[in-house]
């Protein structure tokens, strides 16, 4: 268990409260390898947020084990190291920005790590640069747009140079343009910087760049495979309240009416086929 990666062994999570126990996750076994882009798709309440929080020890499993680069998340003394390894971006951009100025926000994690000032400056400047936020560094977060806030949140996590980036519905509160931009950033980080990415969402369109997709339902892994393998299973997805991406739905409908579309894997080719004279 000393390999690099996030490993879950029969991990389960039960929330206890006065209304009785609620099982959020049961018997999850999975591994996330360095450099992978993994999607977690599921409805609200499916357990994907719980799964995301298991990755950096914000929650610890009530059954089974979770290891990050060989570190057991149940051991409190590992937590600082685990959280430095696993950066986390949350859904609500307003509730994850802590400081009154963008620049300080990005330095927040670095200050916590006790880095010397020159290094804090250097890494802050780098993170601002990579997210295209340099012009906003003296701004107050509440004056930024939702998309900009979420970029600040991402930059402040990147400044800590995590090995894994876990994002819990980061685009849920964004407008379509900011959403696309954020996803583009993730793709670039994964392809160019080799960053491991775990993205949670209930929107199938968000996972077009993912290497692997896990569909979570009622606390268990319901389907897994590459996004194209999953997206063709329209009936299975609909059964748990999820929708196929538009492209797959269209291709399915065309195939049902006898069009030769089985070999076509992108929208441009599909358009070319339909528009043939």
């Amino acid at each position, binding site marked *: 268990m000393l390999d690099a990666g996030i490993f879950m062994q029969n991990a389960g999570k039960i929330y206890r409260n006065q209304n009785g126990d609620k099982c959020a996750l049961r018997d999850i076994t999975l591994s996330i390898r360095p450099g992978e882009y993994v999607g977690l798709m599921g409805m609200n309440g499916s357990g994907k947020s719980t799964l995301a929080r298991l990755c950096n020890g914000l929650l610890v499993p009530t059954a089974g084990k979770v290891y990050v680069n060989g570190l057991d998340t149940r051991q409190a003394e590992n937590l*600082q190291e685990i959280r430095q390894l696993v*950066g986390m971006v949350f859904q609500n951009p307003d*509730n*994850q920005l*802590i*400081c009154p100025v963008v620049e*300080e926000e990005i330095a927040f994690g670095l*200050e916590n790590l006790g880095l010397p000032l020159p290094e804090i400056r250097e890494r802050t400047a780098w993170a601002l640069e990579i997210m295209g936020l340099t012009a906003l560094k003296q701004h107050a977060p509440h004056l930024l747009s939702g998309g900009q806030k979420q970029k600040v949140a991402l930059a402040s996590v990147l400044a*800590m140079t995590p090995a894994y980036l876990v994002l819990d519905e980061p685009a849920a509160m964004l407008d379509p343009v900011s959403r696309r931009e954020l996803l583009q950033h993730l793709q670039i980080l994964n392809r160019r910087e080799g960053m491991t990415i775990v993205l949670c969402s209930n929107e199938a369109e968000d996972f077009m760049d993912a290497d692997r997709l896990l569909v979570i339902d009622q606390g268990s892994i319901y389907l897994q495979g590459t996004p194209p393998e999953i997206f063709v299973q329209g009936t299975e997805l609909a059964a748990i309240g999820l929708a196929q991406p538009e492209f797959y739905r269209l291709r399915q409908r065309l195939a049902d009416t006898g069009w030769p579309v089985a070999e076509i894997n992108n929208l441009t080719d599909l358009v070319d086929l339909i528009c043939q004279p």
Partner: protein
Amino acid sequence: MTGIKLGQYVHGNSLLHRLDPRTKIICCAIIVVAIIINYRWFYLLFFALLMAAAIRASGMDTRFVLGSLRSIRSLLLVTFVFLAVLTPGQPVWTLGILQVTREGLTMGVVNLLRLIILYLGSMVLLMTTSPMKLSAGIDWLLLPLSRLKLPVHNFSTILSISFRFIPTLIDQAIAIQDAQRSRGAQFDAPRLGMRLKSYLAILIPLFEASLLRAEELGEAMDSRCFSGHPNQLRMDRLQFQAVDLYILIFMLGLLAAGILIPILL
């Protein structure tokens, strides 16, 4: 939220804006001490005029700030009336069991002036210092306390989170108010009871939302290894210049004068 709000930072480039926040905070502390230990009328009047001059020099809307004194008029009035009536001494008027005394009137005027000076002083501090600089200044001034093993950095984090969330909470309160109004809450009802009830309908959801927000914020802080750290980047921005020194010397001179006047006269 637009327009100038009382006590909120207004961007500017006056001498007062450029002063080190530490200088301004220490000056405010000096003023508090000075007007407590010496309450001769000319000394207090001098400070009141000094505050007016500071407001003028900072380029703030003088009429707006002085006009805002009206918002604390009931506090001023109650202070004055209570002191005038309750201080024992030589009676001036008698109204039944109530006696307005000569000493009472003097104390009333003195405390009225004190309150006005404190109010104007804090306005100058808040309206010429950005929250960022203010919290850097407070952080720095609290540093010595960390020697006593007090969790100073936690305190400054609390402070900076408050500064960060004040505008967010105001926006949310407005959103909730609009939501409640659209369901028929009467914020301008003629009856006070009805009005209070309407405001309660803002407070409760706002409180609940804040708890939720606090929980999520806690997760975000934990995820970034929060440990109660010194804020180096923020402190590094503080710049103590010659003019800060002159102003501090001037204020200390005033304080010394306040101590010496009662001894010498």
